[in-house]
């Protein structure tokens, strides 16, 4: 279980970092979302992964740490609000700057073809 869990967190983080390094605001926002998913899973695992153990005393033979769950809840709420803000800001930037590149101006492209595929910078 730990192996799969760690692999998933790692994959989400890798995808998140890759997407945040892209040039277009849409992929950056998606990247930030993936990063925050990875973070939430990671925080959850900081209380150790246990099977059949409730967070309430007396409900099961072993109990698991309730604090990471509270932390994840806080992180989800904050992450959600921040993503909403980033989406609105990206739309505002699209309107104000005339394009969706994070620098506000499209980089000079060597030819038209790569311009169409987009977002390589």
């Amino acid at each position, binding site marked *: 279980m730990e192996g799969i869990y760690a692999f998933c967190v790692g994959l989400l983080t890798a995808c998140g970092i890759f997407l945040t390094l892209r040039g277009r605001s849409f992929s950056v926002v998606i990247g930030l979302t993936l*990063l925050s998913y*990875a973070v939430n899973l990671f925080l959850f695992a900081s209380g150790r992964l246990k099977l059949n153990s409730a967070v309430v005393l007396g409900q099961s033979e072993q109990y698991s740490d309730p604090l990471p769950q509270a932390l994840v809840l*806080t992180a989800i709420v904050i992450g959600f609000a921040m993503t909403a803000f*980033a989406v609105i800001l990206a739309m505002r930037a699209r309107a104000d700057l005339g394009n969706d590149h*994070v620098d*506000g101006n499209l980089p000079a492209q060597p030819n038209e073809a790569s311009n169409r595929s987009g977002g390589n910078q």
Partner: protein
Amino acid sequence: MQHLSIFPILIPLLFGAIMLLPPFSKDIASQRVCSVVGTLFLLVSSAVLLFEINISGVQVYALGGWQAPFGISLIADKVSSLLVLLTSFLAFSVILYAIGGKDKGGAYFHPLFMFQIMGINGAFLTGDIFNLFVFFEVLLIASYALLIHAGGKQKTQATLHYVILNLVGSSLFLFGLGILYGTLGTLNMADMAIKVGQLEGETATLAKTGALLLLVVFGLKAAMLPMHFWLPKTYASASAPVAALFAIMTKVGIYSIFRVYTVIFGENAGELANIATPWLWPLALLTIAIGSIGVLASPSLKVLSANLVIVSSGSLLACAAINSEAATSAALYYMVHSTLASAGLFLLADMMARQRGKAEDRFVHSRPFVQPRLLGFAFAISALALVGMPPLSGFVGKVMILQATQSSLQTMWVWPLILLGSLAALITFSRAGTTLFWRHNGSVAAEAEPAKKTEIMSVALLLLASPILVLFGGDITEFTQEAASYLHDIQSSAYALLPGVTP
């Protein structure tokens, strides 16, 4: 009073919330009154808090009655109460400037301003590292909205970078916290400081990873090289009161570095003792260097002030790297000085820009000022303070930092960089002053507006702080010395905060 230490968080929260409700929500005049009254209350309560801490010692406020380390506690000690008072004073002065008309660019300036103050005060006061993250987010989301306040192409672009960078920073913060909680099993900073000494082997390596991730996050907030690129553009494009308030934001990062790497990962951290120092040394010195180059290359007064913020961040990081009581004391004094002086310069730059027509605050030929004497006098004081010339507070602060270096190797690195940084500032300020005040043609610009009384009052408050910091220098340095020795003594800054725990 028992609840005094939570007032700096509650007052801005309440005033901010009230201003969102009718009858205040649509009426800017009553919002202004509300803001001034609110920040005045805040100033008084922070001053009383500082006074009481000075007499009766540290106050631990257990939120909801949950004892540390199980609940979240607010720690009002000499360090945090000094910085809370600094924030409150800055907020009061900046609000005085904002009510002159800078708050009309868009809706909700005053509530957002209050929420940002709440976040900053909370970050200074909290004794729980996850709570520190939450307050960081509070101050950040308010700052995102304030930064784009009044709109414009430049602001949108700067905000987009600022928001994305800080969102990535928040993710890293949570990764670091997750690792630290997984290895230490606690989030209370005092408790972490006690437990971190017991780590060894693999868990120590894991905790080290977490701790250094946190350094990246705090470094991003503090504009530490190589995470400083966002700062000049962001600060220069923000409207004047917002930029002036942002002067304290880099200090929140510096404060967190002092708190985490002196108390938790300080001398008593066993295998992890002083883990940040080898990183802080080169980065701090390079930050001063790159800031000074930026100062020399600044094309306008706002960019110059922003680059000076980077230089002061670098100097403070160098104090964190020296890692001694004298250096921490110097850093606290310099932090107060540089926050107020750079905030004053941001406001002054805006006053000048509005009197020069199209030239704004760029260093080019322009029409003459409407109030050349007033602005010239203010500019001279602010330049003297920021360059670090006697008799103003910048001089005292820089001397304290220079004196804090311990070995000849440290002296060899820190002295030339800080002194060359001052020289760069001196050169740029003299060049800027010559152009701004003496190279004029034509008559006063038609759109020039003289500074309003409240605006002059606000700048005067911020600039007068500099001579006052020198006049009462003895008392203030004594206080910062006590605060520094509190921070460096694990007995007082960790064991004393947890009931029933002894070394």
